């Protein structure tokens, strides 16, 4: 080391910086100039467009034409989970919801959300998001039911959110469906695990207690058996189709009739925690 310590230190600083900057400049030249221009030429892109794509300023690959679509929207449900809707469901006017429930829902779904008739679903402890989605779909005709269609006709979005939140708040919510001790092992397996080979996810993957499924997933535990059977059947034959992207139609169509029966029986058998019980 002939160099003075200070000179050696400075040389380290200068050369390290120079090498690092050089590497970054070469990388940037290749990444933002050479590659996109060469790739863009074969795809018929201008150099400018290709460079913009490589920088992420324009959508698309620098190496291919960007497709377009002339399709028209044909939604199966008009519900969009905007922050406003979610916020309303988190901060509802429960008094308003209770009034609406007492006036127009109680006769079929029960005063406390426990329906007296096998064909009507229980509402107590149901997810507010699930109830809101269905009310909205009834109103828009995405889900067809004469009775419900005429009942929700006059409710606006906020009223629907309030009544949904009211029913949701009536109990502490569902128990984990797998707390029941008995049950046909085949059905338990279907509920917990599904069938990989048939592409059927377990019911509990979405409807379970800690599943993190789609936000509008309803609670099934303790629901009316007849109602569950009717809905699964309707999904299977396409009569009901307000599930977005075939989430339920796809699964229900793959289930055999006896499986649908057993699933309905299984979920109906799981007792909900209700104050009056």
């Amino acid at each position, binding site marked *: 080391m002939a160099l003075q*310590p200070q000179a*050696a*230190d400075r040389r*380290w*600083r200068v050369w*390290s*910086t120079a090498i*690092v*900057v050089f*590497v*970054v400049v*070469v*990388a*940037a030249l*290749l*990444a*933002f100039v050479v*590659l*996109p221009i060469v790739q863009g030429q074969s795809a018929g892109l201008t150099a400018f467009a290709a460079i913009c*794509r*490589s*920088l*992420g300023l324009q959508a698309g*690959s*620098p190496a291919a034409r960007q497709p377009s679509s002339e399709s028209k929207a044909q939604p199966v449900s008009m519900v969009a*989970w905007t*922050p406003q809707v*979610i*916020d309303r469901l*988190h901060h509802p006017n429960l008094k308003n919801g209770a009034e609406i429930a007492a006036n127009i829902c109680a006769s079929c779904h029960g005063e406390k959300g426990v329906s007296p008739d096998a064909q009507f679903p229980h509402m107590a402890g149901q*997810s507010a998001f699930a109830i809101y989605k269905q009310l909205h779909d009834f109103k828009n005709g995405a889900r067809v039911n004469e009775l419900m269609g005429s009942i929700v006709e006059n409710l606006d979005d906020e009223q629907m959110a309030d009544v949904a939140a009211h029913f949701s708040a009536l109990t502490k*919510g*569902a*128990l*984990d469906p797998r707390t029941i001790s008995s049950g046909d092992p085949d059905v338990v397996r279907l509920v*917990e*695990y599904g069938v*990989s*080979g048939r592409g059927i996810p*377990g019911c*509990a*993957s*979405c*409807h*379970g*207690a*800690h*599943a*993190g*499924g*789609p*936000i509008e*997933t309803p*609670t099934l535990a303790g629901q009316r058996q007849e109602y569950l059977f009717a809905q699964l059947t309707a999904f299977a034959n396409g009569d009901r189709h307000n599930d977005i992207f075939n989430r339920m139609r796809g699964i229900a169509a793959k289930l055999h009739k006896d499986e649908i029966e057993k699933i309905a029986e299984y979920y109906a058998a799981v007792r909900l925690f209700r104050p009056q019980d």
Partner: protein
Amino acid sequence: MKSLERLTLAHLWVAFAAFAVACFFGVWQMWARSPLPAPFVTPDHYFLSVTAHGVSMAFVLTTFFIMGFGYFTAETALGRPLPGIHWAWLAFVISLAGALMATVAILSGRASVLYTFYPPLTASPIFYFGLVLVVVGSWIWCVLMIVAMSRWKHANPGAPVPLAMYATVANAVMWLWTTIGVAAELLFIVLPASMGWNDTVDVGLTRTLFSWTLHPIVYFWLFPAYIAFYTMAPQAAGGPLYSDTLGRLSFVLLLLYSLPVGMHHLLMDPMQSTGFKFVQMMLTILVAVPTLLTVFTIAASMEIAGRLRGGRGLFGWIPALPWERPMVLATGLSFVMLFFGGGGGLVNMGYGLNALIHNTSWVTAHFHLIFGGAVVIMYFAISYEIWFPLTGRVASSVLAQRIQLWLWFCGMMVMSLPWHWLGLQGQWRRVAQFDYSNPIIAAWGPWVIVSLVGGLLLLASAILFIWNLASFRRRPFAAVPSFRFAVAVHSPRRVPAALNGFGLWNALVLFLMVAAYGWPIAQFFVLQAPQAVVHRVDRGG
């Protein structure tokens, strides 16, 4: 020095307790995925297990081991008491409390989002708070390491910081940079979402921030292994280190080029452009430089030792090495695993080539070989090496230690080589069970069973490791000679300021991070990307 030993042992025992438990989870997961019928398999059990395995191995084992080993290095390499040992205990308590919180959240089934999070899925806030506390504890460790080094430099003006300590501080500095990404993700986006304060998250931004952390975190785990290569393995082999400067240079390059490269984890992601992926890919290749430098330097150091022991010819020094010593054996085995793991890694980072194996078992094999293999086997060797000075007792059986290392090596190879093959066939990741009635998947079955056998060997090795450490207690106390790290052939009297501190490198890291991550992160604030609805796994459905 009694208190330092207690401090170090406390850290290491927490690390290895988590490690042992995680090994059981890991074997059960492989069993569940195999064609053999396994007990308890449901998706929630499986993903709970994957989360527990990942958090224990990647966060608890590593962080506690690195902290404990760092304290030990600071005091032994610098030859003076650790400043602020009370702070070190505080850091330990914070990290331990965090790890326990995360454990409670995971075991209650409210945090089955794996250790890599995947927002908009959000777990219980207790899980994230716990992990944040683990990191906060490690930050205190970083500060203590930096303070220890700067006080030593103050007391020894102009003298080169001992290599072991220089490397430890390089790791501390790198860890501070590394955690910025995940801390920003957790504190500003994921934790508020899990608390219910916001209902939507920007998934592209969270993934990009996590990628900031995801690569250097692996180097954080790797550093102790490298420190052992440079400062313990030559000593154990009976020779000096070949070059001190090459060591410093390697550690500095690891600091520089492990940070601005995380986007190679996002090569298949739609929200980053080709250009920035290419830039970071190019920087990623440069990580090969310090790795190859290390391979060369350590091989040269071993060559010196082997020749001193009478080895002749081009390769005669290799059989002449004292392979019966665990540290030497572990170094050799580690290099073999580093070779395969590194080769796999070169495929992973290959820009378009990544499409071949992204999210297949190939990647699982890669990081199990690199981290679970090459790094963890050095954690074992380091522990065997320092357990005598820590406890004052000599090992009861070096043979058992050697058997344990060999078992680990064989298990890791038997487990991960089939995974590479399966990955190339397209076997995808994070699946609780495969449908072996499908003809494509059925052909994988035998290889999955082979890898399960590897897993069982690993479990046996893990149990033997704990037994080996515990068996120190049955031995009488012996006089402990002062612990010495390896010194170089030509011990430098002075090193350039650049290789004795981190000022220059911090400035260059800042430059690289701005160049590599500036726009890729800023774009989310310019683009106003649409947000996704939060999916909470800790609430009843």
